């Protein structure tokens, strides 16, 4: 059976969501090709530029656009940006990003739930970026989210799975794809998240700041595939603390 990622009824073979905006646009095509990405994010505020510069022109055909609402400070602004995105022809997918914090760019969970509810009702395929919290993830699911995107660490920090334990809880408890977003700094960290059972990885800064953007996109692709395969295979025994004692502790039981 083919292993597919399904979001909002749409099937994807790739589990790598590529960011854009932090590296030159003429590299997008090569990054998409070498990284095998089928979804690419796009800050609508960056697309809001004159035609000759529009980032939209650089996105290869057949790739699903995931416009985000960065710049929104509350649910109302995110909803307005999402509607604008749809009107501009960016499709029905939307990643909700609501930040009231310019330093760490942490998402505002409360406002994110509100925006998710409204936009899901309007027929958007809503992927909310959130701070990993089980109750919030449940609320997002009830509000109609198509996936949940918990952060691994602050955006751009390349710190890896700082919220690992919380993300594991979401993977275990929520019946939606859990897409790990933000903070993934290297392929090994992406691989680790996939081994845990994450449905997909979204990465931007780690790739944008690499010496060779398309080549790093490919590295992520391979790591994500390896992690996914390990997860599906079922991990073998990994001893946490050395070997077991040779005399069984329960030897006295007959």
């Amino acid at each position, binding site marked *: 059976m083919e292993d597919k990622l399904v979001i909002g009824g749409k099937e994807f073979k790739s589990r790598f969501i590529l960011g854009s905006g932090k*590296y030159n646009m003429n590299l997008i095509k090569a990054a998409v090709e070498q990284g095998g990405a089928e979804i690419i994010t796009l800050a609508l*505020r960056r697309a809001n530029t004159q035609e000759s510069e529009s980032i939209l022109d650089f996105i290869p055909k057949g790739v699903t656009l995931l416009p985000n609402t960065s710049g929104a400070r509350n649910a109302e602004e995110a909803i307005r*940006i999402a509607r604008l995105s749809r009107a501009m022809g960016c499709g029905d997918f939307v990643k909700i990003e609501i930040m009231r914090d*310019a330093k760490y760019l942490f998402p505002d969970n409360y406002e994110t739930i509100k925006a998710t509810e409204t936009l899901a009702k309007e027929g958007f395929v809503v992927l909310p970026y959130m701070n990993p919290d089980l109750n919030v993830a449940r609320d997002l699911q009830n509000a109609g989210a198509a996936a949940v995107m918990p952060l691994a660490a602050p955006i*751009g920090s390349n710190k890896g799975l700082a919220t690992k334990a919380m993300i594991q809880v979401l993977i275990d408890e929520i019946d939606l794809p859990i897409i790990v977003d933000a903070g993934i700094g290297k392929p090994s960290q992406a691989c680790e998240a996939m081994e845990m059972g994450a449905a997909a990885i979204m990465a931007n800064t780690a790739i944008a700041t690499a010496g060779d953007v398309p080549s790093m996109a490919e590295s992520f692709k391979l790591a994500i595939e390896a992690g996914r395969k390990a997860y599906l295979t079922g991990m073998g025994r990994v001893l946490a603390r050395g070997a077991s004692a040779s005399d069984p502790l329960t030897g006295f039981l007959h």
Partner: protein
Amino acid sequence: MNEENQVYFIDSDKLPPQALERKHRLEQDPSFRTNHMEYMEGMEVIDSDIKDIVVKEMEEYDYSIYTAKDVERALSHETCSLEDFKALLSPAAAPFLEQMARRAELETKNHFGNTVYIFTPLYIANYCQNYCVYCGFNCYNNIRRKKLTFDEIDHEMQVIAKTGMEEILILTGESRSYSDVNYIGEAVKIARKYFRNIGVEIYPVNVDEYKYLHECGVDYVTVFQETYNSDKYETLHLMGHKRVWPYRFDSQERALMGGMRGAGFSALLGLDDFRKDALATALHVYHINRRYPHAELSLSCPRLRPIVNNDQINPRDVGEKELCQVLCAYRIFLPFVGITVSSRESAEFRNGIAKICATKVSAGVSTGIGDHEEKYEGKSDEDVGDEQFEINDARSFDQMYKDMENGGLQPVLNDYIYV
């Protein structure tokens, strides 16, 4: 005799004797000047303790005590503390400039990728009621004064927009009577037809006026404090509303209270002790961020430049290396903050600093009034107003765009939706 500031004092032979006498008294007799810490009528007082915190830290800052060890320790820390920042600003950090630049580059890339924003300033009037001794617009300086009409503003903006520019910064001299808030608001409404992102750099106003300007379409307010040393400030800003130091200090906070999305900060490096001013500027930003975490904040780093009628004005002890050190320290201490480097600096410096820590540069700059068509398209026009200061980097928008791209950077014209 006010010897320290003598270099700034220029007497015009066009001034009537009475005005000249008044000018001289302002320059030489402190008792003739108003209390610069006292608010003038109509100036709103807000409840804020940031001033006191910043000034206390600045006064206690003794940069001579820091050593190479402190700098090395600062560079080894993952998060830059205030003590680390003080070490990075100190003379002890000078030999570590390359290491600082590397660290700054890393922080910039993590937060901004390889993007660099391009914008242009537009001066719409140069009338001024202040006597700030180092500024070309000061009311005693004999320059051609001009205030653009709305038709002229529309025309200038069309000329600028035609180049492809999408972000504009509207500036005026500081005259409430010649350039009142409504005049600026109307200019902003015209700008919305041509640009996607609008900032203002005008005299400080009250919260309700910032709110009105935001409704007209402004999202960023930049106010330069010039120097955070209020005693020095008093000797440079001799007359007018700008003389009131605390009202100016609270401008960004009032702007954010009025709903603005972002605010810009700066000291004019070279007026006073630049290390102390740099410390105070960064702390001002730091504390505004603590209280207004949603606000998008930015720093500039202007150095003194020659003005019309006085080519002796210079950035004194702030050389390019010192400026680079300050900017790297800013970036390491405040990795999330935008850094703007203006056309006061050379093309070579701006190309270099954009790779390290600057995130925004101006292009196609004129600090004169109504001369964009002349400068962009070569059509001569006699009816223009003189410039605020001499720029250094006169590159056009196209050239800047190309140079940034050639430097491996990604020029961005707009990253903004007005919501």
